[in-house]
């Protein structure tokens, strides 16, 4: 069980923002922090990792205290068992893929894990290459493998897929889900991609201005309200608005939908698709 309550004033573009969040995360779950950029998602990951000091609160991981303001406990990042995949991957340019992964080994740790991870994440052909010769997706896989070497109690992923193209992103989501299950990890993913959140997470915390606005299972919180009857929910971005119609980018398809007032180009939507009996046909 991972329990934390964090408090900190963050300097944001539009003035100071108070981050105030508490959460209970069950072991083995994949939880997403969802929200616009600047909502405080990355700061929460950094506080959990010990890279940023909260002003108040506590972090308790499987009954061990990592941080407690009142008791003056603040474990160094080195002593917290975490895997962290940075947004820019932070691979060491002077080391090959294999050396990057080996660097993570603790003293006296069994080397077998290295080959196992290289095999699981399919890095065998790349293991002797330097990071600057790899594609974004390959770098991301290396960073993921490196983060798993110490068998972390908590895996933190800071928008690891934001720099990747659509197809590559889908593939890497599968890799992350696979290792999450195979190594029985507790994972916190930062994302502002609705599709990603829906596909990957067991539980979502939606952050707005440093506070949790909604939380719950993704299928529930994104389908609340008027569109409960819809059977299918798709995430998309508005690319064009005309008189009676809007064009929405869903995945890599453009779809025309009826116009709704108060929306602008660039807004992100959840589209509930209602399917009636007439739409269903047996084909095989």
């Amino acid at each position, binding site marked *: 069980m991972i329990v934390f309550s964090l408090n900190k004033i963050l300097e944001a573009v539009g003035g100071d923002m108070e981050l105030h969040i508490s959460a209970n995360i069950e072991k083995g779950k994949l939880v997403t922090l969802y929200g616009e950029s600047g909502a405080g998602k990355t700061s929460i990951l950094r506080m959990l*990792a*010990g*890279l940023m000091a909260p002003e108040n609160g506590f972090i308790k991981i499987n009954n061990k205290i990592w941080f407690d303001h009142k008791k003056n406990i603040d474990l*160094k*990042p*080195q*002593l*917290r068992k*975490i*895997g*962290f995949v*940075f*947004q*820019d991957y*932070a*691979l*060491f*340019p*002077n080391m090959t893929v294999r050396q990057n992964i080996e*660097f*993570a080994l*603790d003293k006296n740790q069994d080397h077998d894990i290295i080959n196992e991870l290289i095999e699981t994440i399919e890095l065998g052909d790349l293991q002797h290459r330097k990071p600057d010769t790899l594609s974004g997706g390959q770098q991301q896989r290396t960073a993921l493998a*490196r983060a798993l*070497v*110490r068998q972390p109690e908590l895996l933190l992923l800071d928008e690891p897929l934001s720099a990747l193209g659509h197809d590559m992103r889908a593939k890497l989501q599968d890799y992350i889900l696979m290792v999450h299950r195979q190594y029985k990890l507790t994972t916190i993913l930062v994302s502002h991609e609705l599709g990603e959140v829906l596909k990957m997470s067991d539980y979502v915390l939606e952050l707005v201005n440093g506070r949790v606005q909604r939380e719950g299972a993704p299928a529930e919180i994104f389908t609340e309200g008027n569109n409960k009857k819809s059977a299918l929910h798709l995430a998309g971005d508005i690319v064009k608005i005309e008189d009676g119609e809007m064009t929405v980018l869903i995945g890599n398809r453009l779809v025309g939908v009826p116009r709704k007032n108060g929306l602008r180009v660039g807004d992100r939507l959840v589209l509930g698709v209602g399917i009636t009996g007439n739409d269903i046909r047996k084909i095989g």
Partner: protein
Amino acid sequence: MFEWSPIILTFELALVTTLLLLLISIPLAYWLAYSDKKIKPVIETLVSMPLVLPPTVLGFYLLVVFSPNNGLGKLLLEAFGLRLIFSFEGLVLASIIYSLPFMVHPIQAGLSNLPASLTEAAYVLGKSKRTTLFKVLLPNIKPNLLTGIVLAFAHTIGEFGVVLMIGGNIPGKTKVASIAVYDEVEALNYDVANAYSLFLFAVTFFILLTVYLVNGGYLKRYWR
């Protein structure tokens, strides 16, 4: 008369100075790159002072401070038998101070320009500050290290004012090549002065050329 001893002495001085400077500059540059202490601007200024101060000023104060007639100079002489004026040891100390910015600045710039996530990634992988410095940070700023080493070396070869003030002109002990040039010109031995000068010119030219070739990647195709 042309002698090899000033030339040899010059290179000895440059070599010892550069090695000691590297040992001093790595922790100093690390501190300057990552510290947010209030005293940092003062230390930064002190490190940079030799860039703008006339070498004679630096030499003069070193002469005053380390004179055996004064407190510190007397103490060093009595306690350790160390005499820092008109001696090779004194030249080394003066050269270290004088060339300090040439070593510290490139290393500091290299460290500051590395993404913070590299350090953070090493920390969350359980690595100490020291391991992170030697295994991650320094190997990724090799061009900066090379620049610092070579600039400090070449700059020490090019010293004159500081050396003259604190070292004087003792053959085989403190008479380096740059002073030998001055000496020979004073004695109207232009041929000998020219020999020393040409030697210094050629050596420093090739040292600097090597740095630019290496850091500019011009030599890479021959390595691979």
